[in-house]
């Protein structure tokens, strides 16, 4: 086998390179160890060749010494973080249905919610007011965070988020217009959803690259990442101006109501909204997971993705559409809550490493947790009433993000170990 004659040189050079590159020698040691394993596995090579099934068994590869491979290690880390996140989220949700002017014990609140037993006032309070609010926070937080993660990935830009590219601007304008036209309050979320989708359509059309040099213009490669961000900035600026114009021209009481909406609030969410929002968000989340492998291939760059059978323009358009739906739904529920979509993907990346399907789920959990916690803080922990939840998400999220970014200069714990 000619391959075998080449083999030792390959591994030697690999080790030598790692050694020379490693300042502390630790990486070198590590490469030595793995090279050792490798030569061992080379002796057991026939086994590997004749039994491909045996090789495939190492999906969660445990190499000798009980050390996990990078992929298995990241999976384990994501699973642990997901467990912790789910536990925290459950605790926050429970807190959400217990706390209030009339604080209930967890037992009483759960009885009232699931069995309908106990005080009628409890049932009304928990079932009618607190639970839809908690659910709305969870749905919107999850939707915003995943939308942000997808947008940042598609735009290949860490600053891309629904706030930046005009989707929340469109939703705000829709809601403000609904208030201005005197539509009934339940229609405001619908108007917001419509506004977000319209803004996204405009954004999509403007960002599409049309090859206009020929007699018949044709689509060139779908949407390019940089155009998406630049056009998005312009769309958002225009929409914000329109919202401000509405607010300035309104009668004072309408203006205040519109303004309250445009800073993001979970006040007065009902079951219908929560259930419709939850179902639609669930469908969109499933779509994101279904598109995940395509997104991973797209990360390699357009040419490499194309060579692997992914059409970059089309894949970007699909991912963008799902992100827009998620963000618009979230904004329809809560108003344009800032910062969740921008910060959560960065937090998750710092904690759990490069994006995988697992980290996507973590984004949903972390977004839900951040928005719900922010709402609890806004309602209960602050001495003044009616603080919009968006103010709190920014106040909570910004220090976390800054702290994590400050650590970026230090060696990455995921790779130094």
């Amino acid at each position, binding site marked *: 086998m000619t*391959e075998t004659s080449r083999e030792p040189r*390959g591994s030697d050079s690999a080790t030598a390179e790692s050694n020379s590159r490693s300042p502390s020698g630790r990486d070198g040691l590590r*490469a030595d160890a793995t090279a050792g394993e490798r030569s061992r596995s080379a002796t057991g090579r026939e086994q590997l060749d004749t039994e491909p*099934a045996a090789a495939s068994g*190492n999906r969660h590869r445990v190499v000798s010494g009980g050390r996990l491979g990078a992929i298995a290690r990241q999976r384990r880390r994501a699973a642990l973080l997901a467990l912790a996140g789910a536990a925290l989220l459950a605790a926050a949700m429970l807190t959400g249905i217990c706390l209030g002017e009339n604080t209930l014990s967890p037992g009483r609140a759960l009885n009232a919610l699931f069995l309908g037993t106990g005080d009628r006032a409890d049932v009304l309070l928990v079932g009618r007011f607190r639970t839809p609010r908690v659910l709305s926070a969870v749905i919107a937080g999850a939707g915003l965070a995943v939308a942000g993660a997808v947008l940042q990935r598609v735009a290949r830009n860490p600053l891309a988020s629904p706030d930046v590219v005009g989707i929340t601007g469109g939703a705000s304008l829709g809601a403000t217009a609904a208030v201005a036209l005197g539509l009934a309050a339940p229609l405001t979320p619908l108007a917001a959803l419509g506004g977000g989708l319209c803004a996204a359509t405009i954004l999509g059309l403007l960002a599409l690259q049309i090859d206009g040099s020929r007699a018949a213009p044709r689509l060139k490669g779908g949407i390019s990442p940089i155009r998406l961000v630049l056009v998005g900035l312009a769309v958002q600026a225009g929409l914000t101006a329109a919202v401000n114009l509405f607010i300035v021209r309104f009668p004072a009481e309408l203006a205040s109501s519109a303004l309250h909406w445009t800073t993001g609030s979970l006040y007065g969410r009902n079951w219908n909204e929560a259930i419709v929002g939850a179902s639609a968000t669930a469908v969109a989340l499933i779509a994101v997971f279904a598109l995940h492998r395509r997104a991973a291939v797209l*990360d390699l760059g*357009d040419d490499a993705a*194309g060579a*692997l059978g992914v059409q970059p323009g089309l894949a970007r358009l699909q991912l963008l559409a799902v992100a827009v739906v998620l963000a618009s739904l979230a904004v329809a529920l809560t108003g344009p809550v800032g910062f969740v979509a921008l910060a959560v993907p960065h937090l998750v990346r710092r904690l759990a490493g490069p994006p995988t399907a697992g980290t996507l789920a973590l984004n949903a959990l972390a977004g839900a947790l951040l928005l719900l916690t922010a709402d609890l803080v806004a309602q209960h922990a602050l001495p003044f009433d009616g603080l919009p939840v968006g103010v709190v998400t920014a106040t909570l999220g910004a220090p976390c993000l800054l702290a994590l970014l400050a650590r970026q200069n230090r060696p990455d714990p995921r*790779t130094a170990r």
Partner: protein
Amino acid sequence: MTNAPNAITAENLRIGYGRNTIVADLDLTLPGGQVTAIVGPNACGKSTLLRGLARLIAPETGTVAIDGDDVHRMSARALARRLGLLPQQPVAPEGISVEALVRLGRYPHQRALRPWSAADSAAVETALERTGTTALRDLPVDHLSGGQRQRAWIALALAQDTPLLLLDEPTTFLDLRHQIDVLDLVSELNATADRTVVMVLHDLGQAARYADHLVVMRDGAPAAFGAPADVLTSELVEDVFGVPCRVVADPETGTPLVVPRASARHRRP
């Protein structure tokens, strides 16, 4: 020579960006089962041609076919199971490990409900071994040296397990040792794994040494093609590259070696 499988045929191919035509009315057959090198001066359309052959750019006119099957009539996935391409200077996503990168090569073979199979694992292991990157599998790609990184990307293309492999300047920015490593690997893949390889190279001597078939491009059209010994003459090199030269036999392989003529100042006394 075109009877071997995996021959690529381009007919009447015209590729351009907007008004700017890069490859004009090109007719070319790249033989199956061989190593083809495409050479030519900068901006002569080598990479564009490669991207056109891999269907990464839609041609304005003309067809590209693999063994007679029009690539533009295949689904993207079906094409990706027959033809792989390593782009020029690819950039790996931040923080991704070598193994995770190579696994992405299995995308065209995966199914929605069966995302990872035994065959996928086996292909990844083989690709890592063949490129000597097994020991690097857990390291992030952005921590590797240039040579290691290029091997990791070639491993990705190998995991894709296509009979046809297109490489766009696989040796650029590598030192001599790593250039030779990559070219030896290519030649071994052709000999032992039966891959048809088409690569864009800059070094004429290396192209002549490693390729069975040589295509010299000029201004978006082939100036000459055929066996390196027949193609690489001093007249052709002067004509295409504008460099007066002598062509001598490579003392190691006997293949043509291009030695540019020296100016009077540098000439042997």
